[in-house]
């Protein structure tokens, strides 16, 4: 059982990484837009470091979440049908996708990190390793969330709309754009309850772009990012394990 699970995770992971490599234009699009965001916001506010991690989080979010969008069409016609009709456990599908999403996020983040030198805050090897770990953790959590929502969506358009409706507002109140000191009290409460605040805190505490960050510390950032990731992953696995009965089909 463990053997076939491992082999299936490998098959899904390799497949997603090959897609990532062969569809570079899509990836460039995902990286370029947050990069543009960072350059424009940083230059506009005259503080490049302030918006670095927020933009990086946005990049990781887009890549991880939208890497799962193919699930919607793939399970009706395409590779996922092979997975679903094979003896591999369905959770291997989730694991393979999440692993690939996490690695892609890590790679993209690491490509983004050298730009930090432009802010005058270069990183050492330890910082880079810690950042890679934080990026992979955030990527895994976002991919789990994306998979869960994609499996529930009937069309890519619906998924896109839902993710924009949920994720963009959460990103806006994560501390990526403004911090708690200038926010109204009710927004401060929202920021504290927002899981993405802790995703950002994990990056802020491992990537030294914004020394003035006054949000949650590394421990609470790591713990809440991991808890959210586990919850999203569990929801995704439970969803995918359910075999449909009647009209509620794949």
């Amino acid at each position: 059982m463990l053997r076939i699970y491992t082999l299936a995770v490998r098959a899904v992971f390799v497949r997603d990484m090959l897609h990532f490599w062969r569809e570079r234009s899509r990836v460039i699009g995902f990286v370029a837009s947050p990069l543009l965001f960072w350059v424009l916001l940083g230059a506009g506010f005259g503080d490049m470091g302030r918006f670095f991690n927020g933009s990086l989080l946005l990049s990781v979010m887009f890549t991880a979440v939208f890497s799962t969008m193919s699930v919607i069409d793939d399970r009706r016609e395409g590779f996922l049908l092979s997975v679903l009709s094979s003896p591999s456990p369905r959770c291997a599908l989730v694991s393979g996708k999440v692993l690939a999403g996490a690695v892609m996020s890590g790679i993209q983040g690491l490509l983004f990190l050298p730009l930090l030198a432009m802010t005058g805050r270069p990183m050492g090897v330890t910082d880079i390793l810690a950042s890679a770990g934080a990026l992979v953790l955030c990527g895994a959590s976002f991919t789990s969330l994306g998979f869960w929502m994609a499996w529930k969506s009937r069309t890519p358009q619906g998924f896109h709309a839902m993710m924009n409706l949920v994720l963009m507002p959460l990103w806006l109140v994560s501390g990526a754009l403004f911090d708690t000191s200038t926010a109204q009290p009710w927004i401060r409460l929202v920021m504290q309850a927002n899981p993405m605040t802790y995703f950002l805190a994990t990056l802020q505490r491992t990537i030294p772009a914004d020394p003035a960050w006054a949000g949650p510390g590394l421990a609470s950032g790591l713990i809440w990012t991991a808890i959210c990731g586990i919850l999203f992953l569990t929801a995704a696995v439970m969803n995918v394990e359910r075999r449909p009965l009647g009209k509620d089909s794949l």
Partner: protein
Amino acid sequence: MSGAIVEAAGLRHLYGERAALDGLTFAAAEGDVYGILGPNGCGKSTLFRILCTLERPQQGTASVAGLDVAKSGMKLRRQIGVVFQNGSLDKRLTVRENLVAQGQLQGMSGRALIARVDELLGEFGLEERSRDETRTLSGGLRRKVEIAKAIIHKPRVLLLDEASTGLDPSARREMWASLKHLRATSPVTILFTTHLMDEAENAGRLLLISRGRAVAEDSPQRLKAMVGGDVVQFESSSPSFAGELRERFQVEPVESGGHISVETAAGHRFIANAFDAFPGQITSASLHRPTLEDVFFKVTGEHLGDRPGEAAGEAEGA
């Protein structure tokens, strides 16, 4: 039925109010090439999804290789290879990468997997295209890769759902040549669904289904023998032509789609007699040996063509 490798008993499956399967019962023997013929929307795809465990049956039972589809998902999926109507290839992966990924999903790895992939590439004549992404292949070649992928783990049952959909006649012939070669060289049981009568002719045993029920089952030859002699079709300018034909020749004409069909032992003589008896009333006449379409019409009163609405209903559900 003893020796049955695929069985269904009283399968009933609803999409809302509509029954896609309505008490379907059949059994396919091990080693058969078993065809399931019916119009779009008759329940074939729902049956297929149940047999490959993508959907649970709501009522009734089904089993493959002695394993209940509702209880033995994982074990059962080791026994089957599946070719889906819309394909399950990854278009951005090469032929070889698709086969390797499928082997891994079936629990294969290492040298055994590579050797099996090489064997299949050779057997299906795919070596030259093995490094090409499958999106660059023709529809016929893609189907070959689908079949190779489905049998990589040497399943006991190969399930094909409308596998020739979208293929031109020569690609369809090629696909069936591959399947016949496979059947001749391995003990695999092939179960396929189709709405095309010429494709159904490939079956050793054929089940006709309509509105989710089995309506006839036998070899294609015996099924066609149910329709006596020849089938003669007339077109006539006279609205009362069918009645006059019945009265004059004591036959049972059937009107459908602007045609009047008659089963008769000696069609050529019947046509000549009809022209003599009704001068000027017949605008065209044709004669053919009975086809599976005629059999389907005889037992259901319906044609194999689409039933609008129901086909859409099933597509939504399936």
